């Protein structure tokens, strides 16, 4: 038995487009030969453009962002810079395409995240695939269908109005035997089309493929071990790298002795400036060798740790910036009209992304071309970073993204891909870097710790009188107030993506629904406090203070499914409620929790979650994302917190850092609101429901016990402290 027996497929085989090394439209067309190719630029077609103004790596290209090709064999291929990391677009994007094109789903292939084959894309984050990319892909498919109808009219010699497209075949309505397949139509063609104006898309109520649940298209690959991730790619002669890491953030290398590592048979040591690495044909031997390196470090003393960080953040916060639409009325007048006032400060901790797949990349340099297989959410960003680091032009770097084993916003920095490329260049051999779990906990771009201060009041009739809101370092997402309050101000200080440089002890960045977890925890806790203060049932209080019909509908849907019976809090039932907006999607949830007062532990027993995301492509896929949000969200609500001191991350593995487990998972019921109103913006599905989990559980704990939690995660220690105050 040799190694090759076990290598049934790697991503080069799966793509098998080796002959299509094309990074632009002209090259692509030249190499693709026959067929019909439709290009579409998101810029031309989309409303909601301001939502994507900030993606790292710059603006959207003016050329095109997606294309699809109909081949002579009738197969349709979608090329996209998006990647699959679990969210399920490997299934939903082909559904959208098949629907608009009237072709069977199993004739659609998808090529993802390959920078030589796919058009530029900012990255897969922000729940943008379905809401931004989806409409563009649907438009490209609709355009392709129009081209096919034109060709068919010629071929069948009947007017277009007499034709019907179905299942990849166009036929004459008056003579169904007079028909022609997409493959036949594409034969010998070299047609290039650009979508100029938004073509008419199908009415969602007429959907036959979209709107239906489909199981994952990558299911079989994932249950058999055939699905390859970046660290699973093998090329001849490759070496595995283990890299010398500092003991603390900010530490500088004083001296290093690599001689003991070099003494091990087969070890190659690379020292390239600050990068010191050990290479070997086996990763475990490289790790042993790395352990033999003697290094001395200068470690600066730090002035704050995970306990004192909140004071630090307030001290270093830049000036407040009022968020868009975040000011109205007169706060002083509002305060005067309030019968009751409430001042609260909410704290949220650093949280790790902790995808089960650690960051990994393999770089192979052949001649003047580097190929990098990377676990990345933004392959084009990785390509540019790698090119810069090894002095190649971007065209000479190809990033291929195999399956990504979870990202959650944490796989956008591409440090490991740059490391693999630098080491491959220095060693003259292919090099794979895969971080250990300890490296993962050290170099993660953690969700930033944040503070929210709210001063609010309610009048004698139970209406919100004023709302004064300051968020520190979570960012604006989800901060905007959607309750009806006449006098209000909402401001943000510091970025939720890091800056200023002195703010955090380590890298921070986007974490599934960035900022919104903190903002929704604070807002929905404060709403609950006001409801209890006014002696009004928390669902009723929300409905009394809402005018947004979509929010009212989604909250009522959750309450109805849950079987909500009004009572003012704390009712001792352990019922919590929360609602919010993320990625243009409306969500509301109601939970039942049980608190063990002696231990300070919480069991979330049941969660009902309702969601309105506008058009739904794969209903079961959308529900699965909601379940994932609820489950993952229990982690930051109850246990997840990164501890640190003197630049050292004290949590280095899962012995101290707890992820949600099977026994934590409540009974989860999901409700998808049907909303085919094409005038509302398409919402995303990967993130929204997770924003509710902090407040949902905090409000449940309050309802069960009368104890109010102001800090996440709600650990047993904090719950017991809150119980003592209650």
């Amino acid at each position, binding site marked *: *038995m040799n190694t090759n027996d*076990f290598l049934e497929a790697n991503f080069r085989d799966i793509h098998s487009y080796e002959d299509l090394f094309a990074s632009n439209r002209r090259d692509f067309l030249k190499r693709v030969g026959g067929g019909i190719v439709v290009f579409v630029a998101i810029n031309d077609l989309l409303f909601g453009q301001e939502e994507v103004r900030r993606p790292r790596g710059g603006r959207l290209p003016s050329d095109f962002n997606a294309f699809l090709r109909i081949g002579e064999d009738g197969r349709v291929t979608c090329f996209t810079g998006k990647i699959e990391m679990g969210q399920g677009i490997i299934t939903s994007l082909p559904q959208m395409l098949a629907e608009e094109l009237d072709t069977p789903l199993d004739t659609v292939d998808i090529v993802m995240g390959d920078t030589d084959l796919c058009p530029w894309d900012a990255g897969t984050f922000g729940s943008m695939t379905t809401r931004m990319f989806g409409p563009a892909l649907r438009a490209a498919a609709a355009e392709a269908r129009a081209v096919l109808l034109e060709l068919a009219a010629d071929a069948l010699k009947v007017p277009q109005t007499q034709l019907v497209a179905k299942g990849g075949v166009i036929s004459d309505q008056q003579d169904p035997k007079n028909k022609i397949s997409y493959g036949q139509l594409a034969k010998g063609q070299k047609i290039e089309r650009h979508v100029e104006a938004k073509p008419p898309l199908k009415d969602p109520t007429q959907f036959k493929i979209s709107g239906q649940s489909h199981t994952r298209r990558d299911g079989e690959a*994932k249950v058999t071990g055939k699905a390859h991730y970046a660290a699973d790619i093998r090329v001849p002669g490759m070496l595995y790298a283990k890299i010398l890491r500092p003991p603390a953030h900010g530490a500088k290398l004083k001296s290093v002795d690599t001689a003991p590592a070099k003494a091990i048979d087969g070890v190659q040591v690379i020292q390239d400036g600050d990068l010191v690495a050990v290479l070997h044909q086996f*990763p475990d031997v490289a790790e042993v060798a790395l352990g033999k390196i003697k290094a001395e470090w200068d470690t600066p003393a730090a002035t704050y740790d995970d306990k004192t960080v909140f004071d630090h953040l307030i001290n270093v916060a830049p000036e407040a910036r009022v968020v868009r639409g975040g000011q109205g009325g007169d706060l002083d007048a509002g305060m005067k009209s309030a019968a009751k006032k409430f001042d609260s400060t909410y704290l949220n901790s650093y949280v790790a992304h902790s995808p*089960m797949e650690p960051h990994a990349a393999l770089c192979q340099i052949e001649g003047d071309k580097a190929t990098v297989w990377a676990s990345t959410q933004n392959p084009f960003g990785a390509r540019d970073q790698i090119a810069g680091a090894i002095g190649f032009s971007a065209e000479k770097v190809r990033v291929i993204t195999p*399956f990504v084993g979870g990202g*959650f916003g944490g796989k956008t920095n591409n440090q490991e891909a740059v490391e693999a490329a630098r080491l491959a260049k220095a060693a003259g051999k292919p090099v794979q870097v895969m971080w250990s779990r300890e490296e993962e906990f050290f170099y993660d771009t953690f969700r930033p710790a944040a503070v929210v201060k709210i001063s609010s009041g309610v009048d004698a009739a139970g209406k919100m009188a004023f709302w004064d809101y300051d968020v520190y370092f979570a960012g604006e997402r989800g901060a905007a107030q959607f309750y009806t309050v006449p006098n209000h101000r909402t401001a943000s200080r510091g970025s939720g993506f890091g800056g200023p440089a002195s703010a955090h002890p380590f890298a921070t960045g986007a974490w599934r629904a960035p900022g919104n977890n903190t903002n929704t925890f604070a807002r929905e806790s404060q709403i609950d406090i006001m409801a209890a203060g006014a002696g009004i049932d928390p669902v009723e209080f929300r409905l009394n203070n809402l005018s947004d019909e979509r929010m009212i509908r989604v909250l009522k849907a959750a309450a109805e499914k849950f079987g909500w019976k009004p009572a003012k809090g704390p009712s001792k039932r352990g019922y919590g409620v929360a609602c919010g907006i993320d990625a243009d999607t409306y969500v509301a949830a109601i939970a039942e929790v049980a608190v063990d007062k002696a231990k300070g532990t919480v069991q979330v027993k049941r969660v009902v979650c309702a969601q309105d995301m506008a058009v739904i492509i794969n209903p079961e896929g959308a529900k699965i994302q909601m379940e994932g949000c609820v489950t993952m969200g229990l982690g930051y609500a109850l246990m997840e917190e990164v501890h640190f001191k003197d630049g050292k991350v004290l949590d280095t*593995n899962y012995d101290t850092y707890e992820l949600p487990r099977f026994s934590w998972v409540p009974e989860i019921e999901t409700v998808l609101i049907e909303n085919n109103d094409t005038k509302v913006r398409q919402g995303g599905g990967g993130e929204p429901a997770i924003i509710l989990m902090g407040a949902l559980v905090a409000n449940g704990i309050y309802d069960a016990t009368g104890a109010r939690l102001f800090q996440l995660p709600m650990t047993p220690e904090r719950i017991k402290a809150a119980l003592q105050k209650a």
Partner: protein
Amino acid sequence: MTDKIAFKLNDKPVQLDVDGERPLLWVLRTDLGLTGTKYGCGAGFCGGCTVLINQRATRSCLLKIKDVKDKEVVTIEGLAKDGKLHPLQKAFMEHDGMQCGFCTPGMILTGVSLLKFNPQPTEQEIHSGLENNFCRCGAHVRIVQAMRQAAAEMKGAH
């Protein structure tokens, strides 16, 4: 320094000349190219590297290759027999018991072992049996559904 280590791997005899102290996980992934077995934490917490050893779910990151001498090792690549998926693999597909799929091989092999020694587990036994396998995407609900279906389907097969 190498040892001759013979064992059964996915129903085939295999003999390696290898340093017996090397971790089973890395010999599987590197020397043998069986990359379905995943590294997740390297310390036995997450379950991503689970394989079957004499039918029992075991964490390959904590074992040395010499520990499997003369034993039967099954990795995710060897679970399907003659092209026929194990009922639990099929159930994972039908219930979408995975998202990113990285924990899936370890999860399935842990589940297979659980069903082998407890063919009709209660809901609570499913939870406790999988408790130390982490899934970050939150596919837990569907994984439990898949376990229930496989248990029902395999009833009588034991």
